[in-house]
């Protein structure tokens, strides 16, 4: 056993008993605080979330107000904040400089004219600033990651809790169903789902959420099965507490920690899935910028501007690394056996 307490033969032989219990969210968080890699992950996510907030504000303005001509005529568009503080990524169409290289670099289109700080990462095939679009893509990534995971979490918890708690044919039916769902590759399931219901980002999120229900359902079910045997559940049942209350008050809180770990890791996975969907054209629809879609666009322009396809990938990578670091940190804190 690779323990931190480190006894070679007997776990409680050398490890000084901690005064406070080594479980619970507070303890977990205190462990995470001492884990530098988890803190790096947290830093990444906090930064990404702040960036996403800017895009989020503009996104709300754009989505809700942009439909009205009055506001559109007033110049409300999805880059209001960016434009106010820095640069409008949507260049004047007549004047747009497309596929400009990043700062200090040249490319085939601009062999004698290096990129400038006006567009540090260059511009895309429509002359839009890549950095600003990257920033705005954060909003989509973070939102879809969290929302789709939230959907999977809620539905999966429900399915898993019911299956594990009632057992019998209900368990069999739900678990077979969730196995079936798992048997169809996520991406294909979601594409079929979006084809059936509509190619909107909302459906992508719902689709990914549904497709990943089995992950949470299994986890919760196994927790429920172990908790169900506990004496206090028997006692609660004998005392006439209703099943629903037992699940809500005892089983769910007892499963909180592993679910938190899984959810954090799942956000990263879902960001990757939705990036893949956007790459295939099944995600956020233009003009809303998303990283997958930027990569998809980049394919045609890779030759003159390889940078165009590098940036969004790095953005996805960093974000997902962030969630994975936090998830790993949480898991290590919860399970000291695989601690480092």
């Amino acid at each position, binding site marked *: 056993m690779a323990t*931190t*307490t*480190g*006894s*070679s*033969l*007997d776990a*409680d*032989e*050398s*490890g*000084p*008993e901690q005064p406070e219990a080594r479980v619970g969210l507070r303890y977990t968080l205190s462990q995470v605080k*001492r884990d530098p890699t988890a803190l790096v992950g947290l830093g990444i996510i906090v930064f990404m979330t702040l960036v996403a907030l800017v895009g989020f504000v503009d996104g709300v303005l754009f989505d809700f107000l942009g439909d009205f001509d009055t506001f559109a005529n007033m110049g409300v568009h999805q880059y209001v904040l960016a434009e106010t503080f820095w640069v409008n990524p949507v260049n004047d169409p007549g004047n747009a400089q497309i596929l400009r290289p990043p700062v200090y670099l040249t490319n085939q289109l601009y062999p004698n004219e290096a990129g400038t700080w006006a567009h540090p990462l260059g511009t895309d095939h429509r002359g839009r600033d890549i950095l600003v679009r990257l920033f705005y893509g954060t909003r989509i990534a973070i939102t879809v990651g969290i929302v789709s995971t939230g959907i999977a979490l809620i539905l999966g918890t429900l399915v898993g809790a019911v299956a594990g708690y009632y057992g019998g044919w209900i368990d069999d039916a739900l678990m077979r169903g969730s196995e079936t769902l798992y048997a169809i590759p996520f991406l294909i399931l979601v594409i079929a789902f979006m084809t059936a219901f509509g190619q909107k980002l909302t459906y992508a999120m719902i689709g990914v959420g549904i497709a990943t229900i089995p992950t949470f359902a299994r986890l919760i079910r196994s927790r429920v099965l172990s908790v169900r045997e506990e004496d206090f559940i028997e006692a609660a049942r004998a005392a006439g507490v209703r099943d629903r209350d037992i699940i809500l008050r005892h089983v769910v809180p007892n499963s909180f920690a592993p679910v938190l770990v899984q959810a954090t890791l799942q956000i990263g996975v879902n960001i990757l899935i939705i990036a893949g969907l956007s790459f295939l054209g099944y995600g956020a629809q233009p003009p809303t910028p998303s990283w997958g879609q930027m990569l998809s666009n980049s394919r045609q322009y890779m030759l003159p501007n390889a940078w165009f396809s590098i940036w969004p990938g790095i953005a996805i990578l960093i974000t997902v690394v962030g969630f994975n670091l936090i998830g790993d940190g949480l898991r290590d804190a919860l399970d000291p056996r695989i601690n480092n």
Partner: protein
Amino acid sequence: MSEPILKVENLKTQFFTEEGTVRAVDGISFEVNEGELVGLVGESGAGKSVATSSIMRLVEDPGEIVGGTVTYKGKKLIDFEEGPDGELRRSSEMLSNEQMRKQIRGKEIAIIFQDPMEALNPVFKVGAQLREFIEINRDVSGKEAKRIAVDMLREVGIPEPEKRYDSYPHQFSGGMRQRVIIAMALACEPDLIIADEPTTALDVTVEGQILDLVDELQQKYDTSFVWVTHDLGVVAEICDRVNVMYLGEIIEQADVDDLFHKTRHPYTEALLDSIPRPDQSVDELNPIKGVMPEAINPPSGCRFHTRCPDARTVCREVHPAYQDVSDPGEARHMVSCVKYENVGYDDAEPLETEATGAFGGGLVEARGDGQ
């Protein structure tokens, strides 16, 4: 008496954790004579298991053996000496890891672990595991090793050993598995077997059978044993001599009869009070008060003073010496308690402890008078 087969002197093992240094084994000394069954007793957390794994040099990170000498048949399994800078360092006589592995482990000293359910590899056949260890430690051919293995299985009372040889561990009960582990230890023909709570995980009836088996085999093979347990009942049944450990230290050591009948240390006394004894009738059992403090920050003076019914102020200040207190003509009886030292225990004020508590004061006085 001839030179003891195993001699442990001032062994120290520490764990370097984030919270601080845990002095799991803090300078223990004991010996095992040939053919002797020596007990190592204490509550969990006393450092018994760490002590045994230290002897085998199997302590894992972040644990480290930091001092002392362990001599086995003249070989230095552990040997620290003071370097020119005053720091302790490994002496040149101490066996290398490679020597330890090839010459000592299995061949000379075998170990039996607490939980037989975990100690056998679930994916290999029992016989194959047995045979491998025999091959390694007895320099015999595979065929010969198999024969020895089957014989040994029969010896430890496994029915149909030829058939069971090809079974997987999960097809054995806990008691049967422990028999396999004992067969494993004996089959390598070591001169010393360290048994780390080998019966703790078993049912009481199975435990009795295993103890009888060990007793019988020990006499037949004349193997020496170090028997680690928290159960004084087991000690009474099989041990010749007993070491009582508390918080990393051995606080009393005596022949088994002396320990039970001429108990010297208040901790041992408390331990004995906490178990039912056939030789004494008590109205009710009297569990030891309080919990063992952490080895990371042990109490000053005598480490037991926080729970000792006899504690006096001096116990807080003086760390008792480990000394022989036997009467002339008797076997050696080592104990470390200030009561047997001339450091002013008799004049010191009684100390309020977890054991004395609200109504314990009178008890302390009564006992004090008895001294």
